């Protein structure tokens, strides 16, 4: 998705763009997510600024792209499970509000106005109207088509070509060489490998997540609903398994149930333990889900960075190489702002916000 957004904004800036993807469109992490466009799970700071900028850009994109992207400005509802949890959530939301997030506390007796199927007895929550959702594979495909960039799928970059001064000259693929004065590394979870090909360094690590998919249902969940623990899980640096319920409906009918996080390399083995925990947490939040069937599951690898911030901008060692990867689980949401920044940097323009926190050179080579 980030690559598609870079292509879209770069092409609209007047640049000639070729997109090279070793798989099909949305064949990596994009197609393995839930299409979250969230501001609610981000604390004040550079990632939230990026998310807020993206929220506005997504609204514009949703008007420009065909309706099939399934863009839904449905809003998020974060639910606390304990009194102290609600206090912490309230403080978190108050801090977010000072950074431009719209957050509205929902007392226990109003939760069911928003979500009639929520479990009884929950102490309260916070409603975030800026949260939204897209169908990520469709959104990436339509964004790519709208970019009018040349798209080469099934073609892997095997080398980054450099000139005598070490500057980028293009890439090599099995079907030949592609000359370009600038190369944008938008390889997501595999961005570290591509950086290595270019003689650069980025510590992108895979953080695995499973999503459980129910049978098609009418609208039983109106918002993006998740447990307050999710925020702590996202911010955690632990490699061990963390799960917290994230539940949302889709226009096609199935309800998607996440979210798990663990760093186990690129291991795709189905984990029954993860699925059991996801199902238990989702049905604790929405008891109605215990009466419907889970049909399937899918897994993906988020591009995890040690400091939870993406790498966006020019590589300090390789002139002409730019990075746009490492967005962990927020890549769909953060894609438009990332693409806009990259387009501005490529054309010598002013980035729409301070990109210093995202500078790719902040990591020392191991």
């Amino acid at each position, binding site marked *: 998705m980030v690559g598609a957004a870079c292509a879209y904004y770069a092409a609209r800036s007047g640049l000639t763009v070729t997109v090279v993807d070793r798989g099909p469109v949305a064949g990596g992490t994009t197609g393995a997510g839930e299409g979250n466009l969230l501001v609610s799970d981000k604390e004040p700071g550079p990632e939230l600024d990026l998310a807020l900028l993206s929220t506005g850009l997504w609204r514009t994109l949703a008007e420009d792209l065909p309706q099939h992207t399934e863009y839904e400005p449905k809003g998020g509802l974060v639910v606390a499970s304990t009194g102290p949890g609600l206090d912490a959530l309230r403080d978190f939301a108050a801090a977010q509000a000072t950074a431009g997030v719209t957050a509205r506390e929902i007392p226990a007796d109003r939760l069911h106005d928003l*979500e*009639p*199927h929520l479990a009884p007895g929950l102490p309260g929550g916070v409603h975030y109207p800026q949260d939204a959702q897209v169908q990520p594979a469709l959104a990436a495909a339509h964004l790519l088509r709208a970019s009018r960039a040349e798209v080469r799928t099934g073609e892997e970059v095997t080398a980054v070509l450099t000139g005598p001064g070490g500057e980028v000259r293009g890439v090599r693929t099995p079907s030949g060489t592609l000359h370009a004065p600038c190369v944008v590394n938008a390889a997501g979870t595999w961005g570290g490998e591509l950086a290595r090909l270019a003689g650069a360094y980025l510590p992108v690590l895979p953080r695995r997540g499973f999503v459980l998919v129910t*049978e*098609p*249902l*009418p*609208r*039983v969940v*109106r918002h993006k609903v998740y447990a307050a623990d999710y925020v702590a899980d996202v911010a955690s640096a632990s490699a061990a398994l963390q799960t917290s319920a994230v539940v949302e409906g889709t226009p096609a*009918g199935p309800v998607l149930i996440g979210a798990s996080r663990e760093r186990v390399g690129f291991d795709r083995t189905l984990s029954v333990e993860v699925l059991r925990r996801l199902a238990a947490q989702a049905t604790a939040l929405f008891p*109605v889900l215990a*009466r*419907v*069937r889970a049909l399937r599951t899918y897994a993906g690898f988020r591009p995890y960075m040690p400091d939870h911030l993406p790498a966006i901008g020019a590589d300090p060692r390789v002139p002409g190489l730019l990075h746009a990867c490492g967005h962990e689980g927020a890549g769909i949401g953060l894609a438009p702002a990332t693409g806009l920044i990259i387009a501005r940097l490529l054309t010598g323009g002013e980035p729409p916000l301070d990109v210093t926190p995202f500078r790719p050179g902040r990591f020392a080579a191991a």
Partner: protein
Amino acid sequence: MARTPADLVGADPGPPFEITFDGRTVTALPGQSVAAALWGAGILAWRTTRDGGRPRGAFCGIGQCYDCLATVNGQPNKRACLVPARPGDAVTTQEGHGHAPLGV
């Protein structure tokens, strides 16, 4: 009597029994699936699609395609081609996903 291939194969099934489809009585034989009993009574469609409400019935007949979903005794999404018919079963046409009452 409903049409069956019983004569062709020289079958000697037990006594027939009754199920209902949308309130109408349908005769079934022991061992028949719900889909076979409905087909035998000339009923070819017992579900409507989620988009467009088009009619659906048995397609593959071996439990793989999920086209023949029906509501059996109040439970939606039963594969009619696999569920054995039992005396008194109430089969009803399934509208779409069959979970409309859960909608909010």
